[in-house]
C-alpha cells in the first residue's frame, strides 16, 4: 500500500476542526438569516453563498492576500506568532472555514426557517426568552438540518483542493491534504497510487453521507419515510 497516511490524518484533522468551527459560527449566522427582517438581508445571504459558485482559486487567492504579510490580519498574526499565516495549517483552517461556510449555514438556516412560526410565538407567550426558545424548540426540531450541515461541511473540507493549494501549498505534514496528494501522484504518473487514495476518499465520503441520510430518514426528519 502506498497510501500517504500522513496526508489522510492531516485531512481528517482539518475536517474535524473546520466542521466544529463551522457548527459554532454557522448557528448564529443561520439564525440571523432565518429570522432577521432586515431589508438588505439578501446581500449577506449572497455573500455566504459565494463559495458555492466562486472558483476555489479565486477564493483561495483572496484568502492568501488577506492572510499575507502585507495585510492587516497577516501583520497582526505575525506580531502575535512570529510567522505568517499563509502556507500554515492555521491558514488552511481559515481558508477552509470560508470555503465550506455555505455548506453548514444553508442547511441550518433552511431547517430553522421551516420550524412552524406558531411554535416560536407559543414559546414566547409562555414567557421563554429568544435563547431558550432556540435551544428548547428551534434547535431540537432542526436536528436533521444540523446533522446535514455538519456532515456536509466535514465532507466538503475532506475533498477540497483549490483553496488548499492556493493558501496552504503542498508541505508534507503541514498542508498536504489527500486531494493534493492525489494530484501529485497523477502528475508523477503514479496512477495506481492515485487510484488507491482516491478510492479510499470516495468510500469515506460515501459512507459519511450514507450515514447522514440514513439518520435523517427517521420519522421526525424533514422529509420522513412515506
Amino acid at each position, binding site marked *: 500500500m502506498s497510501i500517504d497516511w500522513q496526508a489522510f490524518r492531516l485531512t481528517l484533522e482539518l475536517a474535524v476542526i473546520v466542521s466544529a468551527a463551522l457548527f459554532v459560527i454557522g448557528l448564529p449566522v443561520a439564525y440571523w438569516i432565518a429570522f432577521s427582517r432586515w431589508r438588505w438581508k439578501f446581500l449577506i445571504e449572497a455573500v455566504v453563498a459565494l463559495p458555492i459558485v466562486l472558483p476555489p482559486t479565486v477564493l483561495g487567492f483572496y484568502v492568501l492576500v488577506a492572510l499575507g504579510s502585507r495585510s492587516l490580519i497577516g501583520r497582526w498574526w505575525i506580531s502575535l506568532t512570529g510567522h505568517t499565516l499563509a502556507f500554515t495549517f492555521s491558514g488552511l483552517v481559515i481558508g477552509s472555514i470560508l470555503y465550506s461556510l455555505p455548506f453548514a449555514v444553508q442547511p441550518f438556516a433552511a431547517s430553522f426557517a421551516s420550524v412552524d412560526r406558531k*411554535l416560536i410565538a407559543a*414559546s*414566547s407567550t409562555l414567557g421563554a426568552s429568544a435563547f431558550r426558545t432556540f435551544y*428548547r424548540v428551534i434547535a431540537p426540531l432542526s436536528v436533521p438540518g444540523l446533522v446535514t450541515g455538519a456532515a456536509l461541511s466535514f465532507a466538503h473540507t475532506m475533498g477540497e483542493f483549490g483553496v488548499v493549494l492556493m493558501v496552504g501549498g503542498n508541505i508534507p505534514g503541514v498542508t498536504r491534504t489527500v486531494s493534493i496528494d492525489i494530484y501529485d501522484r497523477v502528475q508523477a504518473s503514479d496512477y495506481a497510487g492515485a487510484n488507491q487514495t482516491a478510492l479510499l476518499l470516495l468510500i469515506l465520503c460515501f459512507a459519511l453521507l450514507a450515514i447522514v441520510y440514513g439518520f435523517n430518514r427517521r420519522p421526525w426528519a424533514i422529509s420522513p419515510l412515506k
Partner: protein
Amino acid sequence: MSDTRILEQPGTATATSDRVTQTTSGGLSAAFRKRIPSQAHAFILEVDFQAMPGFTILFGASGAGKTTLLDCIAGIVTPDSGRIAVGERLLFDHPRVNVPIAKRRVGYVFQSLALFPHLSVEENVAYSLAGLRREERVAGATAMLQAFRIAHLAQRKARDISGGESQRTALARTLVTDPDVLLLDEPLAALDAPTKAKIIDDLREWNRAHGIPILYVTHSREEVFALGERVVVLDAGRIVAQGTPHDVMSAPLQETVAQLAGFENIFDAVVESVHPERGTMVCKIMANPVAAPGASAPVILETPLVRGGVGAALRVGIRAGDILLATSPPVGLSARNVLPGRITSLEQRDVIVTAHVNCRVDMEVHLTLAARDSLELQAGHEVWLVIKTHSCHLMQG
C-alpha cells in the same frame, strides 16, 4: 369614548373586586389600528372594545380579522397606533410602550394549538415553569395535568395524542402560566359537542378561581350561544356590534350582523294582527318602491308570535336557503306564505344558484344546480315563493 361601549355583566363585577390576592386586576381594554398590506388591497383592523373577566366571544366570518386582533393583544403583531391594557398595566401604547411577548402575561391558545411535538405532554405543560425549582415545577405541572384530566398522558409525546387530548394539553400549558388574559383562537373548533362541553366546563371551573378575561374566537353561531356571556362581532376589521348573545344574534341591530347570522333577506315590518291561539301573527312588509314601482299593497307574511302588539315595528329575517320556489301556484301546502313573483336574476356561485325574485319586495333565494335545471328557470319566469311561518325570524326593529 371607549367607556360608553362597556356593557356591564352582572356577576362578574363582584368577581373582580373579590380578587384582592390575585396579581391581575380587571378587564382588558384594547383600542388600536393595524394596517396589513397585501397585494390585492390593504386590510385595516380598527377596534375599540373592553373585555371584562369571564367569557367574551369574538365572532365573525373568516377573514374578519379575529386572529390578527388576538395577535396584536399577544404582541405577535405590533399595531400601528393605539393602546392595549390589562387593568392598570399597559401592554402597548404607541409609540412609547410595547411590552415583549414573553413579558405580557397573555395566555394564547392558537387555532393550530402549537404544541411542541418533540416534547412530552408533561414537558409541554411545564414549559413555562423553567424558572422554578424542580419540585415546584413538577408540582405545578402535575396539578394542571390533573385539573385538565390528562395526567395519564404525561409521558406521551405531544405528536402522539388525539385531538381532544391536544386541546386539553394546550389549555393546561397556557393556564399554568397564570395569565392575566386568555386568548382562545377557535381552539375547540375540531371537537365534537360533548367533548367540547366538557373542556368548556373545566375552563369555567378554572376561571371561577382566577377571574380573568377570556377572549374566545369563533365563527360558529352555536358556540356564541353556548358560551357567551358577551359577544363582540367583528366584520372586515371593524366591530359592528357587541352585547349579550341574545341581543346581538337574535335581534341583530345591523344588517352586517344579520348577514353574519345567516339572514340574506331582511325587511322592516309592522304587526298587522296577532293570533295567540295559533301561536302566530301576521306582519306586513312595505313594498319596495324600486322592486315594484307604483305598488301600494304590502306583502303579507304569517310569522311566529313574539312579544309586541298590533302596530309594533319589527324586522323580519329570512334565510335564502329556507325559501322554496315553485313554477306553478302550489296547492295543498302546510306552509302558510305563498308569494307570487318574477325572477329578476339568476347567478351561479360554486354549486349554489342565487335567484333574486321580485315579489313586490326583492327576495334572495338559494337553489341547487339540479333544481334550476329541472325547472328550467330563467330570468323573467313567473314563480311562487313558499315560506314556512317558522322560517320568518323576527328581530327588534
